């Protein structure tokens, strides 16, 4: 469960990215985080991935209090998350396979098991035949799918995505959405930050709308 209570983030410059945001996302729930650019979507995801810390309020993920979470435990916390970025953050000097294998390597997964799980993840995003290529020769949509494969290969309980379709045309965006809906159907908690209204309309899921750092709209849980 993801629980935010009056969460605020003020940067040293004085800029207030988030002001007292409160909502709860149950285990296995799916939601879209939307709003204009600069509304605080990315900041909220960064707080959840412990890339940044909140300056105010309480942030509880899976029973853990993130605002007082010890720094040396952060890697172990992040292993329970899958994070997808708009700029996919792939390593271009490694093959698709090695990019996807990274989350398994850091946890010391048995070497014999890594290929199986990497191929399962690549199969899910439809890139099984491209595992030996460098991500640089792939199209934007394919690169984004490699990023998604990397985010799910270690079977995280929570999947966070920051504008996962930001660079893609509408058809590709819908393909990516299907993937997220599928993970949700398999019980993963999914939170997607996007300003793609078409995506939100098609998905028919809960929407949380941010405006200048404040939560303006919460459609509530949809089933």
């Amino acid at each position, binding site marked *: 469960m993801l629980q935010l209570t009056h969460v605020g983030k003020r940067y040293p410059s004085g800029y207030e990215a988030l002001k007292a945001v409160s909502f709860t996302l149950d285990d296995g729930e799916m939601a879209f985080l939307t709003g204009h650019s600069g509304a605080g979507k990315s900041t909220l995801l*960064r707080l959840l*991935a412990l*890339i940044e810390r909140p300056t105010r309020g309480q942030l509880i993920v899976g029973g853990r209090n993130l605002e007082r979470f010890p720094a*040396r435990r952060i*890697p*172990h*916390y*992040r*292993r329970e998350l899958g*994070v997808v970025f708009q700029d996919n*953050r792939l*390593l271009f*000097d490694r093959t698709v396979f090695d990019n996807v294998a*990274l*989350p398994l*390597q*850091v*946890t*010391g997964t*048995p*070497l014999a098991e890594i290929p199986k799980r990497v191929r399962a993840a690549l199969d899910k995003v439809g890139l099984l035949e491209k595992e030996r290529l460098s991500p640089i020769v792939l199209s934007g949509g394919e690169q984004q799918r490699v990023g998604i494969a*990397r985010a799910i290969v*270690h079977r995280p309980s929570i999947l966070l995505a920051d504008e996962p379709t930001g660079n893609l045309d509408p058809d590709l965006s819908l393909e990516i959405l299907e993937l997220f809906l599928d993970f949700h159907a398999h019980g993963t908690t999914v939170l997607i930050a996007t300003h793609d209204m078409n995506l939100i309309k098609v998905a028919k899921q809960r929407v949380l709308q941010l405006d200048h750092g404040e939560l303006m709209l919460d459609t509530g849980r949809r089933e």
Partner: protein
Amino acid sequence: MIVWARHHRQALAAAVASLLRAPLASLMTIGVIGITLALPAGLHVVLDNLSRLTGGWTQEAGEISVFLKSGTSTATAEKLMERLRRDPEMTRVQHVTPEQALREFRSRPGFGESLKALDTNPLPHLLVVRPAPSLPAERLEQLRQRLAKETAVDQVVLDLAWVRRLQNWLELAGRFAAMLAALLALGVVLIISNTIRLAVANRRDEIAVTKLVGGTNAYIRRPFLYGGALQGLLGGLLAWLLTLAALWALSGPIGELTRLYQSEFSAQGLPVREWLLLVGGGTLLGWLGAFLVSSRHLSAIEPT
């Protein structure tokens, strides 16, 4: 434990891969380390061989031959010997009578015939004095003068005193080599530190992404530590090869010299203990250099 071993194997593989990715840069670093370590190692080999070479002469080094005036009686010679034996500066005094000396000369080929021509023994009494080993080289000269003042003494000859002085010099050079080695070891640490610092900077993205998917600082640091240790190890091996090559290049002239001196001496490379010190030391210095920078620089890289 299994996870730990797996991580280490992975880190070693990653370190080897990154050395091979930039072979020229790696070779240059290893070359610099090799040359840096070869300097003190080579100096050590030279000093080691010199002290072995001169070690054989130590027995005779500093012996003093005291020739008594001709016509001195055996009784006087023995009285002087007794007196010298009580002197704390001398460990042993040996009396060689003219008769003994003559016998020894006769036994040598070529001398026998010419000595037969003499009807009297022209040789003087000889006292061979061995000074105490603790006596420093500069005191030998004083001892020689003291002996020369004895009334019965004709001539005092200091044998191979230069060997003692040389050994003092060798000891000094050995200390200098140790100081040089310490300084150059520091140099190796700095070289590796700089190389690893650059490697960390070059792989910012990789480090940030690895942190993002849950890689701990220790996990990320490990390949860099292995990289540093590996370069140190290869540098140490290169240094050893360089000393061997230098020794090989010099083996001709050394052989010539030892033949001239009719010596059994043959130049030797690094003894096993020093070899281990060189290669193990190189590895350790590489690891240390990597450790010093990677801890600090890695924690500065955080995903955004």
